[in-house]
């Protein structure tokens, strides 16, 4: 459990946000994350995030489905119980295509969604610290992580100069935990001594 200190700035226009992200990175601050109410194309590139490999995972799940379907049906019809259905062949590949296709899609979709939820730490009853309630409404929230070298005041001023409207410092748990949104977080109340730097 990592409890850290963050400098949080909110932006109300994505046109201001883009140059601000560039400036902040150039100045050497560590961007913890930028929270936005909708996907902003290009922001991931500006933040220096690498492209996601979720597609590759989906492909691998898909071919797993293809192989499962084909091997299973062939095994059933040829090895386990070779029924004679009106003298039809035991390996009717064209007749296997529909189920093979459906299982390919099913494995790929289910696998990808589960992987997505796992790597984004999304699940029911999971709680995270949200830096700003309007991050899912109309504000773009840039969160800088304070390291031992960060000067808070300087960081705040820097964000203000970059165009942030509302700026504050928050001590928060950076990971997810099991919790409820109708209850206040008690988690990091006990661990403030572990704050990286104060």
């Amino acid at each position, binding site marked *: 459990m990592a409890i850290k200190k963050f400098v949080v700035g909110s932006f109300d226009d994505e046109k201001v946000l883009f140059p601000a992200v560039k400036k902040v990175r150039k100045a050497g601050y560590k961007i913890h994350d930028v929270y936005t109410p909708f996907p902003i194309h290009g922001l991931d590139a500006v933040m220096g995030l690498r492209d996601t490999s*979720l597609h590759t995972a989906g492909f691998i799940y898909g071919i797993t489905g293809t192989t499962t379907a084909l091997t299973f049906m062939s095994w059933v019809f040829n090895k386990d119980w070779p029924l004679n259905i009106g003298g039809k062949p035991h390996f009717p590949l064209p007749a296997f295509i529909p189920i093979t296709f459906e299982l390919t899609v099913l494995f790929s979709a289910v696998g990808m969604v589960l992987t997505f939820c796992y790597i984004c730490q999304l699940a029911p009853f999971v709680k995270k610290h949200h830096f700003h309630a309007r991050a899912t409404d109309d504000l773009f929230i840039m969160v800088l992580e304070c390291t031992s070298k960060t000067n808070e005041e300087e960081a705040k001023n820097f964000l203000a100069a970059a165009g942030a409207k509302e700026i504050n410092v928050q001590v928060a748990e950076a990971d997810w935990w099991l919790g409820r949104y109708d209850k206040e977080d008690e988690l990091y109340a006990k661990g403030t001594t572990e704050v990286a730097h104060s």
Partner: protein
Amino acid sequence: MASLRYESQVRQPLVVGEKTYHQVTEDIVRPIEAKPSKLWKIGFTVSVMFLLFGVYSVYREVVYGIGEWNLNKTIGWGWDITNFVWWVGIGHAGTLISAILLLFRQGWRTGVNRAAEAMTIFAVMCAGQFPIFHMGRVWMAFFVLPYPNSRGPLWVNFSSPLLWDVFAISTYFTVSLLFWYSGLLPDLATVRDRAKEKWRKRMYGVLAFGWSGSTKHWQRHEALSLVLAGLSTPLVLSVHTIVSFDFATSVIPGWHTTIFPPYFVAGAIFSGFAMVQTLLIITRKVLDLEDYITMEHIEVMNKVIVLTGSIVGIAYITELFISWYGQNPYEAAAFRNRWDLSTPYGWAYWLMMSCNVIAPQFFWFRKLRRNLLFTFFMSIIVNVGMWFERFVIIVTSIYRDYVPSSWSTYYAPTVWEVGFYMGTFGLFFTCFFLFSKFFPVIAIAEIKHILKKNGESFKENMDEEEKDTVEHFAHEHAHAH
């Protein structure tokens, strides 16, 4: 002088009115946070009553057996399979809007995709009931699953189109549900973060899976949506293709035709769009969402209806032509049982023809495409017509089999057969009422994403580069390299 940004003159804004991001949230979340209206309560109660009647009808069928229905010696498939195909077809428009139009980058899908996808899921839920209860001994329904059993193990027949259906429908339902719910996560988080009451915060906290809006998560979310759309596109085509295989791979005259897969898929999209119209014309009015589901949306969907309706019309005429040109006496007899008005079901065929082929032609007129009342009326007509299409295909092909002595039995449903169908309407609308009360019926994040490109108040705003004229830009940059 032409500016660098090219936009077609006929392209209307997709979001009407002066909107900010916050206003979008307000407009769409308002019905969720408000108390249910009287209209909602009445509609919900009526739906639940229909559902209960359906439950009782199914109870009769389970307890007393298939004899509660009027299926007879030659008509093994009657209302039940007709309803099954009808409901599955309706679901197709949702996937078309959410997946295929996403791949084709049709911006207008954004206003209607969430509700259409919900409709898909509920329609497939209704569809699934029919083959399951048609089995008679419904407690043995799990026999369709290939699991290691103590009877050998005796496996299912993987070459049977009926088994393909099991896989197709269950895959379709699962993938549609995943696609819909993964798209809902960010919007549920929006509702959660605005919630004032504790129970609401808690409920949407659980439903939103802890979504935060992180840039990395958005990046993955977009990749996920795109791949799911890519998977759903062939999936939706395969599902109705496989449903049509239930008929086409048989040797019954009237069913045994290669035209069925494309004909069924077009028909499915046709009836699905009609149902989307029925639902959205009411929803946009009741929930006050006319700024997001605009006349433009209604018109575009009417264009799809006239296109797919005409494709279906061509399929009907092709079938008729082939039944004459093919010179197969059995095929000709099967089709004579349709087009000849003096046969017992001739009326059904011509009802289908007028509802599906002739009626949609009115949508060639722009005035009628943009007339709400007419569109609503037409959406009902099309759905009636498409129900009769399935009825005609199923019943008229089998009510006169090869033994003329069994010809005399005329098939009309019992009250429990009709009750089952009514019950699925109850299920469908109960689900839709709950959805429209507790979930955002429009994809909030997606609307915000297109707001500054396609919103009415932003269309005029252009970047400096976009304002540049073509001539000036060309002059400046022509010899840059």
